[in-house]
């Protein structure tokens, strides 16, 4: 599996660390809504198909990336910096 880091270019998956479901929304820091915190800390989507994920290019520039990956085919549909900004589309 190759992941195209917007900064470093296409790199082998071995350079990346999976950081899980990218759909989770962290409640406002002061929120006391335990259900929302519980969902954020423990619930993970697990679709068979396109999935928004966070990966860190831990063996490279160390950026966290938002990666849209098909969990069935392992096709990477797009990658972008989690901080926002540059985005790559790899589906042609």
């Amino acid at each position, binding site marked *: 599996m190759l992941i195209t880091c917007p900064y470093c270019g296409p790199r082998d998956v071995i350079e990346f660390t999976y950081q899980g479901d990218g759909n989770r929304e962290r*409640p406002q*820091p002061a929120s006391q809504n335990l259900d929302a915190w519980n969902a954020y*800390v423990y619930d993970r989507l697990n679709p068979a198909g396109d999935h928004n994920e966070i990966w860190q290019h831990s063996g490279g520039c160390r950026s966290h990336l938002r990666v849209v990956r098909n969990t069935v085919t392992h096709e990477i549909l797009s990658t972008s910096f989690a901080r926002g900004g540059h985005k790559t589309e790899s589906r042609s």
Partner: protein
Amino acid sequence: MSPRRTETGGRIDRLRTIRFTFDGAPYTGHAGDTLASALLANGVTLFGRSFKYHRPRGLLAAGVEEPNALVTVLRGEVREPNIPATMVEIYDGLVAVSQNRTPSLAWDIGALNQLGGKLLSAGFYYKTFMGPVIGPLKGTRFWMFCEHFIRRAAGLGKAGVAPDTSRYERMNAFCDVLVVGSGPAGLMAAKAAADQGARVILADLEAHFGGSANWSGETIDGMLAADWAQRMVAQLGGNDNVRLLPRTTVWGYYDGNTLAALERVTDHKEVAAKGEPRQRYWAIRAGTVVLATGSFERPLVFPGNDRPGVMLAHAAQRYAVEYGVLPGQRIALFTNNDSAYRSAAALKKAGAAVVAIIDVRGDISNEMRRLASDAEAELLAGHAVIATEGGKALTGLKVQRFDAMSGALSGDERSIHADSLLMSGGWSPTIHLASQAGAKAEWDPARQAFLPPKPTQRWIGAGAFTGSFSSAEAIAEGRAAGLQAAGGAASSAPLPVVEAVPGDPDPAPVFEIKAKGKSFVDFQHDVTAEDVRLAHREGFVSVEHLKRYTTLGMATDQGKNSNVPGLAIMAEALGKPIPEVGTTRFRPPYTAVSIGSLAAERFGDLKPERLTPMHDWHIANGATMYSAGLWFRPMIYGLAGETVEQAYVREAKATRESAGIVDVSTLGKIAVQGPDAAEFLDRVYTNMFSTLAVGKARYGLMLREDGLAFDDGTTWRLGEQEFLMTTTTANAGKVMQHLEYFLDVIWPELKVTVTSVTDEWAGAAIGGPNARAILASCVTGTAVDNAALPFMGIVHGRIAGVPVMICRLSFSGEMAFEVYSGAGYGNHVWEALIEAGKPFGLVPYGLEALGTMRIEKGHVTGAEIDGRTTARDLHLDWMLSKKKPFIGSAMMDREGLIAPDRLELVGLIALDNRPLNGGGHIVEELDEANPHDSLGHITACCYSPALGKYIALALVKGGKARHGTRAFVSDPLRNRFGPVEIVSNHFYDPDGSRMHG
């Protein structure tokens, strides 16, 4: 010249004789021979004993799918088992031995298993060896008892126990087009793609490119197909953009068009050239893959179909045409399709007598009738073989009238004298890689075969792989695939012209002849047609269950021969069509792969070693080192004759009495910089950092999102927007990742940069009543007195000319200072401190003394912050700010995390004055025979020189409430039981008067 070797023909070099041994006996062959062809030429018929029944077995195939003739190749100390003799190229001095026989291949006592054949049917082991319901050998224990003997009696080759001294290599390759298989389709594809300028890799698992062209005997472009293939290979070899990989099995098709291949670089050589590895593992990333992997001929299932001398028809043709070896003098063929007629013609041409062609079909085309008569073979249409005769070699066979529609046998049995029976049960495309790539194969009722699925990755099929079994189709499809893969336009230029006898590619749907006797489906695992039916009668309906119960297709050949016949018999038993029974998905590897090739250069201890700048000094000064993660740290600096306990007690005592110094360079250090650095730390730590003055440090605690304690350490404010965070040695990487995650994903608006500077700073902690005096004697550029350097203060100065940063903080509980310098000067500063300490009796101390002093002080480390404890459990709730939210603040007060019965940090004193052990349990009632009701466990322990007692830290239910009470340590594993007193974790100087000075 041996009797079976033809006078001419084949690509062997008759002028070069090669000597080798098989089972200790010397043989000769020719350059170009495989072990199989050379032994066959020597008249050898017996190659192995079968897996379960120890039946004599000969060659079934000529290629990679060979299930019977598995050998072990011995090379020096190294033995490699289970290699098909068909894939071993002979070289001078080759030593090969047969497998699964005791004492010898010809006389095998395991063959007695055949007498009990009925007993050894499918599931026999499971049924028989599950053991009684009660007693010492109940259930699977009985199986475990018997397994040893069963494994000896049934099985394949033995793996070696000597270390593999061979060298392996790993290569990454990139190409536009990877062509797998080098028959006419693969060669055309490679040529077409190369002519388009694409970077091409052509891989074939055989030693010689050409595939079926090497033995088809057809004519292509007016020349022998084998010569045409060699000309194509020569043209390809002249291209800079083509890499040819013979002896290379592409065995895995993974995501993103990444394929794994194994190149056998020197297995065929007597002596490897300098620098050559034994095998090379290729990871190939291909733009497009052309799968031209051909097809496998299927055996027919009939009684005695495993007798030595019964062989696949094309295999015999291959031996004759490619190696100049005849499998027999009187050959009979048994077929359900046209391809065997071409084999008959080729064998006749090579000099064999073809006595009969037995065809299950009643209706035979005129072309095939002509081939039969040209071969002077008697054609028995509408007949089937019902038995074979002979022992370790075939002597004859019996045939009977057969109706292909009903499967019924009728009429008189007739005997035919033959020393070789060749069978053809149709052809199965080699779809393994396409199946691995991710889609289900589709059953084609005309071809009676599974055809490749629609691609889910970027591959294109060509030739027999797609079910197009003629060379003309292969050539056309190959060129089209190569052009498409290289992005070229389709071509209408003339194609090479093939001259071949046309034949019908579709076989009759006959897989089994039901007659009396053992009919083998899976030769390698000894699974018979009756075993498949038995499994069905016992209720196994899913093909996956059938496979596991009978072990059909689960041997090293992974069912390359048995897959379709097994399914067909299963389908018939179920009364369902084959596509409804389904096929199992093929998984990597396609053929066995040596573990050595996967490891390649990466073996032995692969961990990097992290050494502090003072490492050499520690070694030179008698330190015993031990590893802490990747780091090496001094454990003790033992004097002659000292035990570990004596050494750390001396070191700790000297520190508390005068001064000690310890290397703390391994602590994680992270530079946190930027306008929002203070705000960021407020969010990350449970306590406040924005209120911290520049030039001061503060102890901080981090929680995880779920509210449990994560890591602790001091963070130093070096400037308004600049902090130096320290973490525990073990968590340095995790904390860094944690910070990066929050900055990138959660709070991208914060203007903060975090940088790991662990390796940039060397650190020495110097503590004890004389620590300040020692510093004062060697530090220039700053005062270090209480006014200039109060508790938690930071100053900048120089030691021995080197800039240093000194922070007054204490882990040991003494007045202590951490001296940081650039890593390159770490040892220089360390030695200056040691020198300055000499008048004061400064001692270096190791981790044992460090641990002892921290236990005495009741400080926590990773042993207590173990991922299960909260700040409250560790009595760190004073650090939980109520003025701001922080990571973990919302979750830390959940019901279970504030329950009164949680384990809390306490101190323990051994009342029997004996050492305690980490992991020992604390109980209220001592019951050595039946320990029960643990209150908690010991996390750290030592002999305390300050108290003169054996003490420990522990996590105990009720914690503080038990201070001053008695309990017991219960450690049955180490047989350590005894009374303890539960006390506060602050054993020593609880009000901190020593460190505040």
